[in-house]
């Protein structure tokens, strides 16, 4: 018979892996608190389950002693009443514990940084809001945050309901059209944490991942500085040709590359696509090859997503991939 201790054992094994998208690989202040609560509740519940199983086995296998029914019934009444009382105590305890954790995780008063998260079918847009509007910048599918700081995420949806979930950092929160939710993240340790949409949102719900990169404040500032800049102008011939293809073909109608004529807003901002680790919302590693494969036939790799198949020659493909790659 399986038992919950296997779960606990496995839990510790899993938490050993780093970088995984796991509840037990907790690296954010919320996730750490949640992990403690989860383990405590799992422990209590496992104990309850074992006690019930002991009762079951003893009920089935006990030696039937000669005893008057009335005495047995009275004994049983006492035991059952006790068990019900214990149930009440256990669930009250768990309710209080969970309420306690909820309160401890209440919203940060004074966040260092506010990011607007806009989820759409099937990618994430991040707008780093700055009071000086010129300093505001937009990126996609990759969120950089400084460690040890409260980061406030304003969660919005562009179409259907999605759910923002980076288990290593915090519990999930839905993004609902017509409403705005707040989620506070605070990464305690640097690392790359994977997250994924957790509310069914249509065809490519499975491929709607994001990465949170928690880094030291200096690293973060350097990255943010880079993101605020306009896109680089390619110098290499192939990339120059790629830029021309990008502007001449359908690409520019949906994507923005700041500093060029491309200002479409339907697809992700590509100004610094070359600096991201993955493309297509975590679908593929960002290499020249995968960029070319993706552009060549996005519907094959992520059927139903909103990027159309644009017929391109192989030269054009190579040039586009080269251009994307230099957009660091």
């Amino acid at each position, binding site marked *: 018979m399986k038992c919950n201790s296997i779960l606990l054992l496995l839990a510790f094994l899993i938490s050993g892996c780093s970088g995984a998208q796991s509840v037990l690989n907790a690296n954010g202040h919320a996730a750490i608190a949640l992990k403690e609560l989860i383990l405590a509740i799992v422990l209590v519940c496992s104990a309850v389950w074992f006690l019930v199983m002991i009762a079951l086995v003893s009920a089935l296998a*006990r030696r039937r002693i000669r005893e008057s029914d009335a005495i047995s019934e009275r004994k049983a009444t006492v035991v059952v009443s006790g068990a019900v009382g214990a149930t009440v105590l256990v669930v009250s305890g768990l309710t209080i514990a969970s309420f306690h*954790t*909820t309160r401890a995780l209440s919203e940060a008063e004074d966040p260092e940084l506010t990011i607007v998260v806009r989820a759409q079918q099937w990618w994430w847009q991040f707008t780093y809001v700055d009071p000086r509007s010129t300093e505001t910048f937009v990126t996609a599918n990759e969120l950089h945050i400084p460690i040890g700081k409260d980061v406030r995420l304003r969660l919005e949806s562009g*179409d259907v309901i999605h759910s923002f979930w980076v288990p290593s950092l915090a519990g999930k929160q839905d993004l609902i059209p017509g409403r705005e*939710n707040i989620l506070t993240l605070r990464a305690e340790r640097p690392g790359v944490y994977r997250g994924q949409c957790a509310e069914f949102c249509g065809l490519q*719900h499975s491929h709607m991942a994001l990465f949170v990169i928690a880094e030291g404040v200096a690293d973060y500032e350097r990255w943010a500085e880079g993101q605020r800049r306009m896109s680089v102008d390619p110098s290499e011939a192939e990339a120059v040709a790629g830029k021309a293809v990008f502007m001449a073909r359908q690409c520019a109608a949906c994507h923005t590359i700041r500093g060029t004529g491309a200002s479409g807003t339907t697809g992700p901002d590509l100004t610094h696509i070359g600096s991201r680790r993955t493309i297509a919302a975590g679908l593929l590693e960002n290499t020249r090859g995968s960029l070319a494969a993706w552009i060549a036939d996005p519907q094959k790799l992520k059927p139903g997503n909103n990027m159309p198949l644009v017929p391109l020659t192989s030269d054009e493909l190579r040039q586009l991939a080269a251009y994307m790659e230099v957009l660091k």
Partner: protein
Amino acid sequence: MIEDRKRPPLTDDGLDDSVLERHLSQTWSASPGFWGALATVDHKVIARRYIVTAFVFLILGGLLAVAMRIQLAWPEARFLDPDRYNQIFTTHGSTMMFLFAVPVMEAMAIYLVPLMVGTRNIAFPRLNAFSYWIILIGGLLLWISFALDAAPDVGWFAYVPLSGPEYGPGKRADIWAQMITFTELSALAVAVEIVVTVFKQRAPGMSLDRIPLLVWSMLVMAFIVIMAMPAIMFASSTLILDRLVETQFYNPAEGGDALLWQHVFWFFGHPEVYIIFLPAAGMVSTIVATFSRRPIFGYLPLVMAFIATGILAFGLWVHHMFVVGLPRLGESFFTASSMAIAVPAGIQIFCWLATLWLGRPVFTTPLLFVIGFIVTFVIGGLTGVMVASVPFDAQVHDTYFVVAHFHYVLVGGAVFPLLGAIYYWFPKMTGRMMSETLGRWAFGLIFLGFNLTFFPMHILGLQGMPRRVYTYQPELPWAGLNLFISLSALVLVSGFVIFFIDALRSWRSGKPAGPDPWSAGTLEWATASPPPAYNFRRIPVVEAREPLWSRSEGLAVTKGLQVDRRELIVSSVVEALPEARESSPRDSIWPFWAAIATSLMLIGSIFTPWAVVWGSIPIAVTLIGWFWPKGTVEDTS
């Protein structure tokens, strides 16, 4: 009618047993042939159809589960494309909830409640026939659309806006919503029948404290259906209205709200779990008592626990919405109420354990399934306590942890008792025993296969695997467990295959059962197996909670019922004192036509709102045909 009146009424008084049986059989049997089969209102025949239909849907839904497990066995598998996968998991969930679990529990009620309360037919037997045709057509609607690649693809709770007018092109979501209307209509009809049968048709002497626990659980279930199902009918109708004629219920830009759908859906959706679980609890109570060879321990606490579950069921729908951003205080209230339901659940478990402890358990297949139920359902209940906690839920909501949790509750908590109940009542329904050997194999494989399949899903959930993904990427550490789960599912499937082989084989050539093969205590075992069309030769008089265990000089019965018309005893609600010799309607084809007319209207209204107007006319005609007195003896008074 006038001729009928002239003839003096024939009562069972002083009739010889065999003569009495001949008269009763003539009065109550359906006419032979296809026509008679369509027109029959015998609760046992209809229940059998319901059960077979529900199990066919179980097989279909199970095949979909297998398809999903093949797709998920490997990362980035291409066995199914995402569109088909979405249709499959939606159809799987909708089939299992609406076309298997709820109907099969109601079917058991339709079969067992009239027998257990000692009456000749269910109340409103024509409504009963109607409800069957309705759910059959509703199920066909879903499955025909599935066969045509137009099945709903929005999940079994069809959250707007994904299922709404803007993001749900085509008629897929409408088909889902209308399929819901079909199943709810049928469920509501059956609920009314159960309530009235239990209230008014109990055998004389079966006062409230002598009602069998299964009947209590079905009664509470029926009340939950009555209170909860209007919510989902409202939800599905407004969804269709939003999609078809542009009402703005779920459009935030015009004062509507996407969360309104979730509130209304879960106001039904959570009680739905108890609609499925409570009948199972009744089955467990019955099986435990019979095979412990003693009356159930804690009859009154169990009844109270059923009722408390039924009431609390309406106070915890928000725990499905812990991550949508509701106010903290409200969420904490729903944590407390969700935790509180563990108390009546605990009472039930402890009473069953005490009964087993006090009795002398006989390890037959039904009892094995009940033991399997206790083992798995306690896990499901405890994971339920876990997800009732707001912070815990913030991590596991919409992950495979939840998938594991509700399969433990629904399969462990309802399907295991149901399979036990099938083994237990199969002899009553067919007159033949199922095989103990195959039964043990089926139990072993299903129990093992189930746990091996679903327990690892808890871990996958904690590892971050969201539900409803058609695939996952190779770099994620989920592949091993997924393959393991997919292989384990084969064990589970093989268990079900053995169960179905056993059932089919035993139906044809099982060992004859006799009226009471288990030496049980409740009234259904007081008549032949399978019961004759009239259920009981003479209506029993109940003098104890287990009439068959306490009878001294044979079964106490009544006399004086008329046998040349369909007649049964109506009794008072509390004491079950006889009040009248009420007639029970004859067979009629009108419920069938009414169901066809209703179906045409409902399906037509997927496409045009005018179907509601024009479709109502045939419905009115068929209903008038249904209720217009035909001048039979049943109409005399």
